[in-house]
């Protein structure tokens, strides 16, 4: 039973929230879409995930204790949203992980434009378990520290290290053991 006093006070989003979220939207939408793209392989879906993340941030804004945490909150929303997308795809495809052959919705010439070497790395990345992929993206692209990744993903520092190690190892193996 949750007592009323246990429920944090909620307030309607205000003009304040509108302005603050609009500013964040202008400055961080692109980087969030890029993060989502690296997780779901599909620009349009990534844009949807990010739009949902900003909507969640807007709803949450009055209750955000630390406004500086907004970026972290956004990133968490993008991670969660991307996870939901992958879960839906997995259900739909009855496949343990989204089949890049069918689910990626990148431009028809996108694969041609990327260097062969990059394509091989990205193909290996897509085959990683979800958690390893998230850790790899946050570590190598977002350049977060292991502690920050642990906070973002809500896992222990040890789990971050383990996932990063195994993810990196799997990619290296896929690339022919290159080091």
């Amino acid at each position, binding site marked *: 039973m949750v007592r009323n006093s246990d429920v944090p006070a909620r307030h309607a989003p205000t003009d304040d929230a509108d302005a603050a979220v609009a500013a964040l939207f202008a400055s961080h939408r692109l980087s969030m879409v890029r993060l989502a793209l690296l997780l779901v392989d599909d620009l349009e879906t990534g844009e949807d995930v990010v739009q949902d993340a900003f909507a969640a941030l807007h709803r949450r804004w009055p209750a955000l204790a630390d406004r500086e945490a907004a970026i972290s909150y956004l990133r968490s929303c993008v991670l969660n949203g991307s996870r939901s997308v992958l879960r839906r795809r997995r259900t739909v495809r009855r496949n343990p992980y989204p089949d890049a052959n069918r689910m990626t919705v990148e431009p028809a010439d996108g694969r041609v434009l990327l260097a062969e070497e*990059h394509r091989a790395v990205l193909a290996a990345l897509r085959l990683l378990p979800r958690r390893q992929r998230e850790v790899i993206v946050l570590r190598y692209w977002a350049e977060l520290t292991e502690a920050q990744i642990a906070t973002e993903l809500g896992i222990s520092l040890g789990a971050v290290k383990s996932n990063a190690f195994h993810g990196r190892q799997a990619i290296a193996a896929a690339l022919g053991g290159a*080091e």
Partner: protein
Amino acid sequence: MNTIDDRITAALRAQADSVTAADLAPAVPPASRVVPLDRARSRWAVPLLAAVLVGILAIATVTAVQLSRSTGHPAGPATQLPVQPTPSSTAPTPAPSQSGPAASSAVPSPSATQLSSPPAISATPPSRVPSVAADDFKLGYQPLWPFGNYAAAEHWRTTAGGSQPWHLDAGQTALNFTRSYLGFTEMTLVTGTRTDSRGAHVGIGYSDPNGQSHTAATLHLVRYGAAPDSPWEVVGSDDTTLSLEQPAYGSRVSSPMAIGGHITGVDENIVVSVLAGQSDRSTVARVPAGGDHAAWTTGPVAFSQRGVLTLVASTGGHLQQVERFAIHGVHT
């Protein structure tokens, strides 16, 4: 670029940097438009609403399934659409080349391409069972028409010897798809073509009695292959004032399913059809709708088609039978 760490970093950056601000669809940040319910109501309103919706959905599903079983036909107000005859085998008439930065909007333009004579159409119907094995090229979209898979597209490219050159023209491919596959023969114009990194976006429309051209839909096409002479493939339509959003694009569906989207308009009657080939189609629902970006849905509707399905929503009745339409690709 020696270490695996460097290679991973470089690849992720390359993939991320492939998206620029110009690639993003226009969007606005969320704003406070709706006054939230007071807390006591809001705590109960959502679960209650969800329960009611689940109940309605369950009843409708059971009814639809029972009707389907008892009659052998789709439940609801479904009627079979007449099958449009395939255009005659007149020699192909390639449209003027629209490669390069052609008209960038689907706004009716004086340069609209008029259909002169029906080109010969021979399309490989979507495969009954989606086959990944046949696809060496990763299209990334749900191929709808004219090729069912990459092998068929490559077969045309490598062996057709230049027959049916309209495959190389996105505008003509979109127009043929609309007239021959969807059966919307009132559509006679390519009102605009825009190309970007995702492919071609072709405005398809018609001319009213005053000679004014109107865009009915903006179709999305991509080249089915990496070669410069790979043929165009229709993969969907861009959201405009009529959109199809449910079920999710490219998803696996089963009967019954709910089909829905958004519409802006007044006194509209949305006709929803399911196609699995030129001769395997049915109208599954007619939905009255209207408003400003108002959500519409058919509710659960039964269908019998299998394989790759093209969902079609169309509305009209003011100037002609079909004035706007949207398409969506899913599979069973």
